[in-house]
């Protein structure tokens, strides 16, 4: 991502709080490292159940949602979150990229399906699409 664009978007994202739902610490480190200069404040949920509970306590600007997680997966977490919040953007961030996977994330109410390895430009494009920067 070019620096000018990053700085412009960073200014828009400063102070915004997003939720990263990811059970693997190493994947958490990757996302936190990639978004280190994004301006976002990033909260972490280690599984779907934690994500649901955190969403009850705080109105996040956006949720990044892994799919395969212990205790509660990303599909069930999204179904529950959608019952309490229909507006919050939920972005699947997963290694699973078949048509069936993509259809399933859409059917439970996720807005987008992004793949790992993370395409940082696409991730920022998705943030800009769903986060009102006005």
């Amino acid at each position, binding site marked *: 991502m070019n620096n000018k664009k990053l700085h412009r978007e960073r200014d828009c994202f400063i102070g915004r709080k997003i939720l990263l739902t990811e059970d*693997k*610490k*190493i994947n958490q480190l990757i996302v936190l490292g990639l978004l*280190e200069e994004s301006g976002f404040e990033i909260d972490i949920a280690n599984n779907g159940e934690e994500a649901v509970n955190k969403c009850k306590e705080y109105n996040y600007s956006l949720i990044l949602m892994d799919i395969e997680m212990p205790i509660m997966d990303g599909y069930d977490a999204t179904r529950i979150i959608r019952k309490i919040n229909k507006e919050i953007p939920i972005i699947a961030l997963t*290694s699973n990229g078949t048509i069936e996977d993509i259809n399933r994330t859409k059917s439970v109410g996720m807005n987008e399906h992004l793949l790992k*390895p993370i395409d940082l430009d696409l991730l920022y494009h998705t943030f800009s699409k769903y986060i009102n920067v006005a």
Partner: protein
Amino acid sequence: MCSEGVLPKFKHINSDIGLKFLNSNQKLYLKILKSFLERYEHLDIISLESAELNDVLHAIKGLSATLGMEQLHSLTMSELTNDSKKKLKESLALVIDELKSEL
């Protein structure tokens, strides 16, 4: 053993791919490689039960793609058989040994 912050020349890891996916952030790349080593250094794929094996393979599939471990990644994409598990174990061992000696 690499100097602090200097990227070693790997034989079984394509660092160009790894750096591309980590936004050319060498410090982050080394940090994640070290974390991969710590996490999987003592893993024995052959001894894992089905549910745990699926979980581990799912994680390694994503990480190997991100970190440029091309051979390991292609093996995680193939159908799981006793033979493929053996090949996975060997490929993971090559990566782990290299990380141990270079990081």
